[in-house]
């Protein structure tokens, strides 16, 4: 499976679930998504967004975003996101991390909603007309509690260390990636490597495996989280994120950055073509 081919599964208006920066962001898919050009996307950040979200917004593909935060971490605010918010060009639904997880959990369980504590009296709740507050039916009266409706993304996209030839994906202790897949209609995964052994064959590897039952497509993309790091694999390239943060302060700088080799090599290198088995990291 080639990254461009995988990107074609995304259709205009779809709801995309994307993971937090340290869990396994498929940065390798960012450029193919932009080149594919399906717009009007609704992003659902699990539970926060960063570089990928900022780049999709900068490319004009995003209609709305639901998230608990968007930032570039040590590199500061997310410039394309911040400008879009300032100018009102995207709609935002501010959430809080456990509410994001609650929406996915409701979908995972086939439930219409999931309750959660907190939130009462916050402006997050005040601006969320899609959430409900009921009185806890198990209390003697009063005890308001928020209900978060199920969130069923059309597509979840993430990056993981490995998959096997059956389509099972090893996600380790990053269980939010499983939660995203359970909740989503389709799940697209890029991986560092494809292994020969069946990941479900040993209890040790099975414990951290998302079964192929939940996986639509897998594509090879070594260093596919770059410039983010991947747990257990490689660290974050902070210098590159700082370089992006600086460049993307203006739309022009953003466009230049995205057109530059650093950003595009992930998509255009022979590495991601189906004819090449061995892949080079983008540098």
């Amino acid at each position, binding site marked *: 499976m080639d990254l461009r081919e995988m990107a074609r599964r995304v259709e205009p208006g779809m709801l995309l679930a994307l993971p937090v920066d*340290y869990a396994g962001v498929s940065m390798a898919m960012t450029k193919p998504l932009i080149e594919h050009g399906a717009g009007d996307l609704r992003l659902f950040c699990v539970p926060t967004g960063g570089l990928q979200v900022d780049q999709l917004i900068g490319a004009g593909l995003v209609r709305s975003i639901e*998230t608990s*935060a968007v930032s570039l971490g040590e590199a500061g605010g997310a410039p394309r996101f911040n400008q879009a918010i300032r100018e009102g060009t995207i709609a935002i639904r501010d959430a809080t991390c*456990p509410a994001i997880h609650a929406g996915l959990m409701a979908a995972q369980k086939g439930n219409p909603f999931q309750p959660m504590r*907190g939130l009462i009296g916050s402006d*997050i709740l005040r601006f969320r007309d899609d959430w409900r507050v009921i009185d806890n039916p198990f209390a003697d009266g009063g005890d308001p509690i928020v209900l978060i409706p199920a969130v069923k993304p059309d597509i979840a996209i993430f990056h993981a260390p490995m998959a096997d030839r059956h389509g099972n994906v090893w996600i380790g*202790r990053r*269980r939010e990636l*499983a939660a995203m897949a359970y909740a989503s209609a389709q799940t697209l995964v890029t991986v560092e490597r494809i292994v020969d052994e069946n990941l479900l064959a040993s209890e040790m590897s099975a414990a951290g495996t998302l079964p192929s039952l939940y996986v639509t497509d897998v594509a090879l993309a070594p260093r596919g989280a770059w410039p983010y790091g991947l747990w257990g694999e490689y660290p974050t390239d902070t210098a590159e994120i700082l370089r992006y943060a600086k460049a993307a302060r203006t739309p022009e700088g953003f466009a230049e950055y995205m057109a530059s080799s650093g950003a595009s090599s992930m998509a255009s290198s022979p590495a991601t073509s189906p004819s090449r088995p061995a892949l080079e990291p983008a540098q």
Partner: protein
Amino acid sequence: MREVHPREILIATIARLLDGVRHVAVGASSPIPAAGAMLLRAQKKRAGAPPVRLSILGSVEHNFFTNGSAELFDCAGQGRIDAFFLGGGQIDGRGNINLVGAGEYPGSTPRWPGSFGSAYLYFVVPRVILFREEHSSRVLVETVDFTSAPGTSEDGVYRTGGPAALLTGKALFSFDKTRPGFTLESLHPGHDLAEVKAATGFGFAHAGSPKQTEAPDRATLDLLRGQIMDELSETYPDFASRLRSETAA
């Protein structure tokens, strides 16, 4: 003995504020809270007291979680996290915090990253320490522009947690949820009441002549500059080396 660095005062104060906790969690980019928790952990260990557990989010070294990014919130909901740190672009006199942005929502200018888990953790972690080094009327405001999480809740709202203290670069405040409002506990060395009043956008209770924030004693300072900086540098190498060079001057 060299002069005590202002950040060493903060770290030692945090260790004192955390006294008695079994499990404290700190955010990924919170070296001062982490150092405070490490200091308390080391002090308790030396004293043979029950151990203090420290979870640093996003750290591999100090990650005790294996159930994805929801586990911190589950763990807090179970009552297994005794203390946490929250900051905010704005903090107001009623303990409300704003991590979303200034001005009218949703077109906030500036827009800050967002509320993260604050709208939950502020409700369920018993001892939340508001920590923000910048002490200015830009940060400490009369009323926040957006309430990511309120400082207090009406009777009948489920709430097992909330603000215990506000620590800034200038002073330490406690929080009285009955008023609700902050009380100045102490001024850090080099700061006075008039300066703090001018830099604080909300009113607060205070003694006629406030105490000075306690500086770490020699044993604490030795521990901090030795073992704690070693531990800290595993997770926050840049912060630790900067603080080391500044205290070595």
